């Protein structure tokens, strides 16, 4: 009998276990996660949860009955600290809590940990990160404390901007400090970045680009042995941005410690092939921790590590099939979303390697899109408050279809009607 050990009780880990059962695996499956909570969804932590619209129950992924009914042993609140494989491929994992787990199959869905700010002063009270449920459980009430007026968000990516939007909606004075020359610079084109800069400023948030943070400053401890509270963030030009609360959202780092112990190849994450198999040919990895061959658009080359629910689910499906000896390659079109104030951003595809963009609609209307092209072919789109058009693009990309750039710019024609099949045109 096989025993599958899945390390990381997250969206990818749960999906992997679920798909193994769907594919007919009846052997032992153990899913272990270091957090004390049962597996939950992360995206709401910086959205509905911070807005106090959700309770912990609302973000739980599966009921206890589901785990029991599917014969999946869930271990929460214990961390795998060592893992090794014997020459026959089976192996042993040991945990912080003293468990020794024998396995024949191993899946790493270890995710990513929050990137820490390295300047002085991050240990003042009132400096927060936002990655886990525990972070959200602390930050949500902290944002509502009556003496918190000035909120500084360090990092102008999705987590930072979503958090800034919530703080602003709570009536706080909000400053976003972004180290780069534009917002969400890692993910979207300049047009979309410029829109978010204008949109957040319109809502009263101050945004500082190219911000060089030298340290976080605070007051003296009120009691011996207790750290004081944050009072501001100092920039390289000497300016101190006042802060009663700081949220740091500067990205995440893939968790590769166990992969490293196994001697697996690592390159910005655990290197996997298109079937989610790691370099030992046995272990699979999925989700935020996995670096896979660029799946899209085909032929682009290179590797990519995606941080999204969609990718966690897709890779987990593939990894499950691979563990059961039925490998199938990644074919999904990645997609992402971000909700900031009343702005719904939906991104379809990956824009890496684009050589042309088309802006559809007027950005200042807060209902527009940016479509990305490579060699005249649609490869991705950022859609703001245009959900139907996002769906049209996503379906077009999934079918290998495109939208001619001139048609994409014409807002009088629904995008859905402009989708064409390049193969049919060539025929």
């Amino acid at each position: 009998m096989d025993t599958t050990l899945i390390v990381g009780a997250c969206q990818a880990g749960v999906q992997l276990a679920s798909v193994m059962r769907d594919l007919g695996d009846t052997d032992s499956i153990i899913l272990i996660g270091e957090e004390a909570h049962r597996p939950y969804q992360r995206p709401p932590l910086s959205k509905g949860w911070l807005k106090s619209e959700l309770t912990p129950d609302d973000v739980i992924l599966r009921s206890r009955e589901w785990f029991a009914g599917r014969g999946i042993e869930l271990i929460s609140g214990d961390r795998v600290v060592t893992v090794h494989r014997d020459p026959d491929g089976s192996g042993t994992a040991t945990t912080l809590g003293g468990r020794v787990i024998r396995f024949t199959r191993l899946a790493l869905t270890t995710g990513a940990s929050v990137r820490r700010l390295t300047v002085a002063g991050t240990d003042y009270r009132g400096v927060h990160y936002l990655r886990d449920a525990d972070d959200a459980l602390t930050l949500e009430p902290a944002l509502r404390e009556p003496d918190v007026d000035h909120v500084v968000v360090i990092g102008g990516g999705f987590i930072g901007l979503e958090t800034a939007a919530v703080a602003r909606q709570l009536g706080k004075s909000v400053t976003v400090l972004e180290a780069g020359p534009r917002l969400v610079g890692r993910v979207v084109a300049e047009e979309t970045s410029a829109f978010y800069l204008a949109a957040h400023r319109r809502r009263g948030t101050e945004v500082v680009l190219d911000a060089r943070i030298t340290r976080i400053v605070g007051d003296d401890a009120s009691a011996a042995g207790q750290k004081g509270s944050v009072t501001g963030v100092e920039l390289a030009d000497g300016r101190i941005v006042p802060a009663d609360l700081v949220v740091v959202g500067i990205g995440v780092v893939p968790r590769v410690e166990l992969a490293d112990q196994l001697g697996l190849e690592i390159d910005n994450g655990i290197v996997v092939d298109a079937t989610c198999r790691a370099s030992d040919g046995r272990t699979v990895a999925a989700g935020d921790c996995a670096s896979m061959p660029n799946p899209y658009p085909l032929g682009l080359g290179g590797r990519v590590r995606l941080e999204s629910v969609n990718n966690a689910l897709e890779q987990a499906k593939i990894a499950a099939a691979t563990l059961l000896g039925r490998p199938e390659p990644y074919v999904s079109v990645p997609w992402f979303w971000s909700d900031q104030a009343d702005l719904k951003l939906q991104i379809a595809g990956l824009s890496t390697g684009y050589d042309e963009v088309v802006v559809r609609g007027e950005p200042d209307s807060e209902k527009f899109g940016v479509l990305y092209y490579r060699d005249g072919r649609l490869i991705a789109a950022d859609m703001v408050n245009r959900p139907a058009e996002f769906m049209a693009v996503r379906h077009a990309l999934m079918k290998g279809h495109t939208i001619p750039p001139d048609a994409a710019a014409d807002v009088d024609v629904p995008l859905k009607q402009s989708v064409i099949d390049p193969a049919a045109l060539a025929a």
Partner: protein
Amino acid sequence: MTITDPMTASADAANQEQTVSRVVYTADDGTVTEIDGRPGDSIMETAVRNGVPGIIGECGGSLSCATCHVFVAAETLALVGTPGDLEDEMLDGTAVEREENSRLSCQIKLQSGCRYHVTTPSEQI
């Protein structure tokens, strides 16, 4: 603080004068699954937490993915109201074309002590 189980929570909620609702999911192939759902939870959440096939809910109910499309049975329509503007737009992009009784099940919150019947489409992506 730990996150409590929704199912445990619903049992504990007996003193909150709310009774569970029953959701009947009929899959495209005719398979029927019946689940007791907690009032306030959506039809999507109730399905996903209990592994009901045919509903994905990738975005967790934030109206971003349209992978929880259902057809609402005639006898349930009166319970569920009509789609909002955003839901209506997303319904234009479902994998299986929308019909008069189409809804995104993340937007249908269960009331107390009701019976719901929905049919899931052949595909969600």
